[in-house]
């Protein structure tokens, strides 16, 4: 499903070159729940961003469903982001002006669907994440956990091939975090491929496979559970 082949990402800071990622090769199969671990600055988020097409690799190849993300146009990349990938951010990244329902439906709105079509899907997903009574609320009126659940619903609305989650509970208390992980896990059990960045081993344990990064290189790769099929 996602294939990384000797991927590197280099940033330039003044005259200095910083290698955030070096020579990473990785295969992620359908139905996997991959947890990416590692200390701060080890390149976890960078790796996720490369997989999600938010950022582009400076070396190596990234394939998604066999398509080379490193070599396609911005437009194609945009379409892949829109239709094949669901993103969950640490800071939720909901648009503050939009209601929960609109936020959830946003990817489809971007795709040009009329709101009347988007709305029932968004409502269904909100129900699925347990927020059907919050659909008209704006992010500021929601709690952190609720916001993240809205974000998960948004990630799901296009029926993406993979959900990429970047420290999805980084801003939440442990109880709420637990709920979110359970939600993700149940999604995975239904067959949803998930890649999650976290620095918390307990959280990582919800996954079916854990990789650990260290200084931009792959330090460990371990399968701990069964891949849903």
């Amino acid at each position: 499903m996602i294939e990384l082949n000797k991927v590197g990402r280099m940033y330039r800071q003044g005259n200095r070159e910083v290698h955030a990622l070096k020579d990473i090769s990785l295969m992620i199969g359908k139905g996997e729940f991959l947890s990416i671990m590692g200390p701060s600055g080890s390149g976890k988020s960078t790796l996720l961003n490369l997989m999600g097409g938010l950022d582009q690799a400076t070396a190596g190849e990234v394939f998604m469903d066999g398509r080379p993300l490193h070599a396609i146009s911005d437009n194609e990349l945009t379409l892949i982001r829109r239709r094949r990938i669901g993103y969950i951010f640490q800071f939720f990244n909901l648009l503050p002006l939009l209601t929960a329902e609109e936020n959830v439906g946003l990817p489809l709105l971007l795709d040009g669907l009329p709101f009347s079509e988007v709305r029932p899907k968004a409502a269904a997903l909100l129900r699925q994440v347990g927020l059907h009574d919050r659909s008209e609320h704006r992010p500021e009126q929601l709690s952190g956990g609720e916001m993240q659940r809205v974000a998960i619903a948004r990630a799901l609305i296009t029926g993406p091939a993979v959900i990429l989650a970047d420290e999805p509970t980084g801003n939440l208390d442990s109880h709420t975090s637990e709920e979110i992980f359970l939600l993700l896990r149940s999604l995975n059990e239904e067959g949803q491929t998930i890649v999650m960045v976290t620095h918390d081993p307990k959280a990582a344990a919800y996954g079916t496979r854990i990789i650990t990064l260290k200084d931009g290189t792959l330090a460990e790769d371990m399968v701990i559970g069964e891949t849903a099929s």
Partner: protein
Amino acid sequence: MKLLNLLRHISLKHLHLQKLQLVMAVSGICLGVAAMVAIDLVNRSVLKSCEDSINHATGRAVLQITGGEAGFPEEMLERVQKLPGVEYAVPVIEATGGLTGDKERALMILGIDVLQDHHIRDYSITDESAEIPDPLLFLAKRDSILLTRTLAGQIGIGIDQEVNVQTVAGLKTFKVRGLLNPEGPARVAGGDIAIMDVYAAQMAFGKVGSLDRIDVSFLPGQDFDTMKARIEAALPPGYDVDTPAGRTRQVELLLGRFRTSMRLVGCMALFVGMYLIYNTVSISVVQRRREIGILRALGGGRMQIAALFLAETLAVATFASLLGMALGLGFAQASVGVVAQSVTEMYLRTSVSELVFSWPSLLLNAGIGILASLIAAVFPSLAAARVTPVSAIRAVPYAADDFLRGWRIKFAACLCLLIALSCLVAFEVASPASPAKNLGFVVVAVILLLLSISLITPVLFAWTLPLTHNLLAFCFGAQGRLAGLNLQKNITRNGVAVAAILCSIALFVSSANTVHSMRTSLFEWFDSIIRADLLVSSGHPLATGGAPTIPMPAEMLGEMEKIPGVQSVEPFRKGRVSYNGRKLMLEVFDVALRMDYCPAMIAVGKRENMARLLPDQDYVAINEGLALKERLRPGDSLVLPTPQGPVRFGVAAVIVSFSSDAGVVWLDINTYRRHWRDPLVDTYEVLVKPGAKIKEVRQAILDRFGGERRLFALEAAEFKVEVRKILDRSFVMTNAVNIITLVIAGLGIIVTLLASVFERTREIGILRGIGMTRSQVLAMVLIESALIGAIGGVLGAAAGIVIGWIEMEGMIRVDLGASIGYHVHYAALLWALLLAVGLSALAGIYPARRAATTNIVEALTYE
């Protein structure tokens, strides 16, 4: 579809929730469009009114015959009437008067053959279109006059009552014998017109036996050119046979300067408006960077993002432009009266009775406003499209930070500058006929120059800022130093603010300078030609609308010189002469005498060459405008029609004169008399002996001639004051638009600074967190704002001076000649600086207070 979705779900909410910025943007566009609409309406209305005046006064006439300023013998009428193919030929006398009484009011007096005139013009004194109780009496009495119903109603005068009119021939009492309905010629000049029988007019205005004009219509089936040639052949040389449309063209030529300056300030208002939009959209992009990042991360395409911002601009601009149309109508209504008065004083009798309202022109202006807004929004919208999806996740200080100070921008700035310079150079070297001598080049140059300056501003800002550090620290202590550092840390974002202020101030300063230069040049020229102490004329020297004066005999000169206290007397005669379809102003005086005491401004050619104008040589001097338009230089020659046939005159020099936009020709009075056989004089310019009292000499002149004729002797100082007033009034509209420009600029400054402080909530939270007091925060933000304003203001004033020069070169000197000096309007400069600093500080107050009351915890947890 996609776009509408996004607009509905995202943009509308922004518009709804960011009311302040919305109001600013809307006001900016609205004012800009209003200024353009008002200028356009006023321009059209004044021109239409002038044309109407001519067309109504022209009626069905196909050709008009004129012959010199002082009229021509009425025998010509019969000659023309007898020509085969001529249907009607009717005489006309034109005069200007002022109603005296409670309210001074200018009046156009048309002398026509009331028995014949209905063949040409739409009315008849015996018809229902007029109320003339006793036409026989009207014809029998030489004091008979007809007023329009409108005018009579306004001044409260009825039939059989007397009305006092100050005319060029002195104060006259007329008796109102009837009232005209506002039709045909009675519509001329908005009804401020009186009609007399042509023979009564001849007597009233001292023109017995002569006519100002003959209006001719043809029998059906006559060939125009044949008829024109036939009429020209029947008349002595020196007569001008032209179509009334030709006269309309003359009006356009005549109003040239007025229209140019109006167009100029209109462009400026538009530029500033564009900048405001550019700025507002830019800020919106900066503020919504994160939102854009999220949209991009969720799969929003680049073009979708750009289109979103453009569509938002379109919506706001459309709304604001429509509002601007309405406001513009109001502005026009308020200003048209003043403008019409000014046109009357400077060019020709007119009074605008109604605005020329045309939907196409209104919509065109609104369209220009919308289009300009969109163009202005293109650059920031594309910048929005460049925001990377990662911006949604990472707190990049300013996504385009490197970009805006990178080599690409520097390169783009240099490129713009280069193109701007080449446009200018091309314009400068081009000959007047080449297509490069086009206003478009100048406009493009100015826009590119502004663009280049805007692009380079962050760099400039980065250079300037360190210079202020020590000063700030010295004056304001810690918060001063901090403010400086703050600005420096965020050079790019603040650079945008500085650029906004810079451009606004630059445009204001440039148009203020241009107008000031025109004004100063006019005054300088005027001072240079009026060197005498007393101006003696038979009609009031301030008689307006190019009114023909009552000339005086040449013999008066000798007698006047005998009056004690008089040092010298110089005759001056004014006339009109046709040349290549232009009505040139002929200014005739005693060159030998004038060369002695008058520092006439010579543009091209040597001052010694003016001696060529002396009596026995056929030389003239022409003004710059004419030289430019007809491509004449000293040494060239031109053929002018004289009553004795065409005469070739050499051009001795090109002089500075703004007497007429159509062109001015200077001629020695002896040469003039030789060719024109005209011994009359319009004005005697008297120089008083040193030590003699001007007032006494003036009285002596009045005493000496007062018995024979009505004389006006005006002290030159008095005259100058009056003329200055008139000239100043002609800039009223320009000044008003300049102020609008400044207001838009002020709005731009406020928008920029508001946005800049809103952006920094977190930063201020940190500062508060590390122990800054509220008042320190307040002071810091205010100092920052004022500093941005000051740097923007200074850079803007400098740029404005340059741009003003370009406008001068490209729009004014092309028409009026290179001798119009470029004068910096220091008061406007000071105002601009004060305004930049003041408005910036003011704009800083709200955000500063907000910053001071920022909840530290919230500020830090956000993002």
